[in-house]
């Protein structure tokens, strides 16, 4: 028995498989549980909400989906995942094929100190990240993030700075239990020759709705990459030029008759 438990633990720490997509589901031992804990909690919350709304408004669809999510949340097992051979419990976040990952680098003609200072004040980030509505610092490490997401108004989560090395690195990730599981890091490096700073940003998002949604959204992965590139361009513009350039607002559309 003890041995088996060890095996399970070991299997849980197995190097995440490359692309869980085609992998056949292997029983993990705990009665077919295949939903990660964070996701389990979100399923409970969302399921409860949907079921409640379904009851109140008499929507069978809401009720059914809500019930499904509640089941998923309470048992930690998901028949759909089973069918697709997905097991989010076994995958550690950020290294597997789940969620969205984007990474980009850019050269900015400013010293690392200035760029680091801007970024370390996380409340500045909505000025360069187009999908982030606001960031509020709760204390030195913790912050509350609000983002605009497709198919919903906003989503918010609490994040904490996990690593910081002045003028070199800032890494952050969402705190356990957040609605959105995400992590990111920005590195600042003086180029071997020449002036300015090379900035490297990487980000991962695991959207609410778990892995299936993630896989659908994965089709838009290049979109996230593109967005990160535009965000970094905005960061560079703000740092180098002090402002972001603006076209004359739809000049052609404004012609008075």
């Amino acid at each position, binding site marked *: 028995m003890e041995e088996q438990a060890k095996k399970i633990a070991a299997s849980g720490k197995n190097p995440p498989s490359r692309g869980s997509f085609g992998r056949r589901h292997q029983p993990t031992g705990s009665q077919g549980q295949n939903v990660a804990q964070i996701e389990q909690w979100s399923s409970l919350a969302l399921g409860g909400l949907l079921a409640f709304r379904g009851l109140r408004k008499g929507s069978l669809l809401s009720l059914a989906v809500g019930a499904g999510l509640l089941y998923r949340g309470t048992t930690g097992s998901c028949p759909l995942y089973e069918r697709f051979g997905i097991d989010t419990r076994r995958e550690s976040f950020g290294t597997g094929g789940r969620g969205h990952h984007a990474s980009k680098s850019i*050269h900015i*003609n400013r010293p690392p100190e200035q760029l680091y200072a801007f970024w370390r004040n996380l409340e500045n980030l909505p000025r360069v990240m187009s999908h982030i509505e606001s960031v509020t610092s709760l204390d030195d490490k913790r912050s509350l993030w609000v983002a605009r997401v497709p198919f919903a108004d906003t989503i918010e989560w609490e994040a904490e700075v996990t690593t910081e090395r002045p003028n070199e690195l800032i890494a952050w990730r969402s705190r356990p239990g957040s609605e959105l599981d995400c992590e990111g890091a920005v590195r600042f490096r003086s180029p071997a020759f020449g*002036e*300015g700073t090379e900035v490297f940003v990487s980000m991962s998002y695991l959207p609410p709705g778990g892995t299936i949604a993630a896989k659908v959204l994965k089709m838009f992965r290049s979109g996230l990459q*593109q967005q990160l*590139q*535009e965000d970094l*361009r905005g960061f*560079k*513009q703000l740092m*180098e*030029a*002090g*402002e*972001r*350039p*603006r*076209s*004359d*607002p739809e*000049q*052609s*559309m*404004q*012609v*008075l008759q």
Partner: protein
Amino acid sequence: MRAVCWQGKRQIEVRNVPDPEILNPRDAVIRVTRTAICGSDLHLYQGRIPTMRRGDVLGHEFMGEVIEVGAEAKHALSVGERIVVPFNIACGGCFFCEHELFSLCDNSNPNADMVEALYGDCPSGLFGYSHLFGGYAGGQAEYVRIPFADVGHLKVPDELDDEQALFLSDIFPTGFMAAEQAGISPGDTVAVWGCGPVGQFVIWSAYKLGAAKVIAIDRIGERLQMARERGGAETINYEATSVYDELREKTAGRGPDVCIDAVGGEAHGHSVDAWYDYAKEKLMLETDRAHVLRQILHCCRKGGRVSIPGVYGGFIDKFPLGMAFGKGLQFTMGQTHTHRYMKRLLQFVVDHEVDPSFVITHRLPLEEAPEAYRLFNDKKDDCIKVVLEP
């Protein structure tokens, strides 16, 4: 305000549009006192530049009086000052601006991703030159907003009138940079293709930089005449003679040391390759007609230098790279780094070494812009350069 609007291919209208406003802290707004039509505006006129939209305000050669200044431009500009504005928009803070490559500014095009998709990189934004280059309203209007106005302006001394300063916005620096980039050394023979306004300033600049002889090539009588009489160039009418033979004759068989293409992608010609270009262009198989460029490679001396201020937008065909390689030619090209030259060239004007207004042949009110475009495009009425008064 009244503004010259692009309404479609060969359709220009003067219309009422909203007055510009300060949008960014480094903006300024000026009341335009003089503006001009540039040869490159004709590319827009002929519908050759993509991403133009009905109602876009044209014009990138203009000057005027400052009427409003954003908070972050106040250290450099005040209301009431008379300024001339470079046609490219540059932030002054990026790698390229710091290296005085202002037309390659990283931060001045809000639609950078569009150009990157085409060119792999993004040059600076431009006034009144399509959404690809930033979607900025142009200066053929009563008022215009100047982004990054703290670096994008040159104050005009009182003793100069508008017409003497206006061309510091584009064509004078463009002609000068073409000559300077070609590395003209004293004693060189320089051949210039195209005797439009830029060509005229190339001729002046080439002599200024020490050329012993400038030979100008065109087909239009009044332009060749201006090159001879105002510029002191020898001229060749390419319709009357063989350009190659003439150039060899004038250089004792060696060919010009420096060749400058002040024509660009809308070259005219009657040779086989020129007709080939017309045909392919009509079939939309190439975007630029490279006839002049081919002729330049053929005529230039071995080890010579080719400078291209003429605008090319897309693809050219039958470019004889082997010929260029075999002759060991050097090339320089690109949009003008206008900011780099304005002050220096202003000094020549102040010192009475040149009065750039010599290229002006027509002065019309802004309201007559449609007629002005037509005249200039069709080279009617001996038109070389049109200035508009708002």
